[in-house]
C-alpha cells in the first residue's frame, strides 16, 4: 500500500500531527498497540483525517478502525470516485 496516494496522506498526518515514527507506519499497524495512540490521539487523528480529505467520519466508524489499513480503506470509500 505504500506509494498509494491515500496511504501517503494518512502517513503524513500521523508523522506531522501525531509524531508517529514513519518506519512504524504499515498497513497492518494497530493505532493503539503498534503506534501508541491514546484515546485523545485517536480523536485528533479523526479530526485531522476529516480536514485533510474533506470527509466526515462518524464516531462509530472511527471506533471500528483499528489499523492504518482500515483507515485508508474507510477514507477511500468516502472519496468521490473520479
Amino acid at each position, binding site marked *: 500500500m505504500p506509494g498509494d496516494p491515500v496511504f501517503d496522506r494518512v502517513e503524513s498526518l500521523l508523522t*506531522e*500531527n*501525531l509524531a508517529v515514527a514513519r518506519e512504524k507506519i504499515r498497513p497492518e499497524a494497530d493505532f493503539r498497540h503498534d503506534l501508541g495512540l491514546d484515546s485523545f490521539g485517536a480523536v*485528533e487523528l479523526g*479530526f485531522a483525517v476529516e480536514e485533510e480529505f474533506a470527509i466526515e467520519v462518524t464516531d462509530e466508524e472511527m471506533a471500528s478502525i483499528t489499523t492504518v489499513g482500515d483507515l485508508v480503506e474507510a477514507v477511500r470509500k468516502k472519496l468521490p470516485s473520479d
Partner: protein
Amino acid sequence: MDRRRAVVTGMGVIACNGIGVKDFWSANLAGKSGVKAVTAFDTSMFTARTAGSVDDFDVLGFLDKRDARRLDRFSHFGVAASKMALEDSGLDLESEDRERIGSIIGSGLGGVIFHEEQILAGYEKGVHRLNPLCVPRITPNAVSAQVGIYHGLLGPNMVVSTACASGTHAIGEALRKIQYGEADVVFTGGVEAPLTHFTFGAYCAMKVLSKRNDPPEKASRPFDRDRDGFVLAEGGAVLILEEREHALRRGAHIHAELTGYGLSSGAYNIVIPDPTGHDTARAMHLAIRDAAVAPDGVDYINAHATATGANDAAETKGIKEVFGDRAWQVPISATKSMTGHAIGAAGAIEAVVCCMAIQDQMIPPTINLDTPDPECDLDYVANVARAGKVGVVLSNSFGFGNANACLVFARHAT
C-alpha cells in the same frame, strides 16, 4: 520555628526587547524599546497601531513540531521560559523528588489566539467541526499543566489569573507554597500572547492603548506628561523559586531572595484605578512588612507604571503614602516603557528586572520620559540607567479590577 525562605535560582525570559536574560537585561540597561508597528494583522481601523511583539521567537527551538501544534502561543512562552530557567538554575530534576516541585504561572487571558481562530472556523464550517485541541490549547491552566508535563513536575499545578497582576500574584503564591512547606521548588512566573485582531481591538475599545504610533518606540511613556495609554505586548518569564536550604545544599547560584508579598483590592472599578492610590499603598505596605523591612530600607521600586494617565498618577500617590519623604529619594523605574505591557506576563518579566538589578547593582531607566508631569514628580530614573546600591527591591503590579500585588526581592547574603 523560623519561616522557610525562598530564593530565585533560575530565570528565563521572552520579551519584545530581548529573549533570554542576557539580551533582555542589556536591552533594559541600554534603554532599548521592543515596541514596533503591528504587522501581524490590519490595524488601519484602530487608533492604536503599535505592540510589543516578540518577532524572533522560534518555538521549534524549544518544542518539537507536534507539541508546538498542541500548545497555544502563551504556553509556548511558558515552556520555553521554563527550559531557560531550569538550565540557568542547574537543578537536576532526575535527582529531585518531583512531588515537591510545582508550576504556578500567571496568565490574564489564556489561549486567545486559538480561541479566536476556532470561533471564526466555527462560523465558517459549523461549530460541530471544531478542532479537538480547542479546550486543551485555550484553557488558561494549559500553561502550568504543560510546564508540569514537560518537566514531569508532580507538585502544585495552577494558573493565577488577575489580569495585569497575574505574574506577580503567581510568584507570590509560589512563595507561600514554599513557606508553608507545600513545595520545595516552584516553576513560577507569567505569560501572555494577546496579539490577535480581536483582543487588540478589545483593548482598543476601552481606549487604554497609546495612539502615539510614530515612531513606535516612543509610544510607551510612563510618568511623562504626554503619556496617552499603554502598548499591548506579549511574552513570558519563569523563575525557579527554591526553598533556601534546598538551594544552599546543592550549591546553587542565588540571584536574589524573595522576601515579601502583599495583596490588596481597591474595590473601586473594573478598569479604573482608585485615584487616591490608597489601595496600591496598602499592597506595597503589606509586602514591605512581610519582608520585615522598613520603607527606608527599600532601594529601588519597579513600578507598575503602564503609561495610562490614571495608573501612573495613582501609583505615584500610593508610593508617597507608603514612603513619605523618602518617596523623593528612592529610584523608581517603569520598564514597561521598553517592554510595553505584557498583561499577565508583565509582573514576571519585571521580577527578572528586579533580580538583575540586585545582581548587577544597576537600575534600568524609564525611557521616553521627556516632559515632567506635575502629578508624577518622583525620581523615575529618566532615560538613562544608573548604578546604585540595590539591596532591597519592591515590584508593583496592579491588575484591572483593582487586583493589586507587590513583591519584595532582596540581595541574598550567604
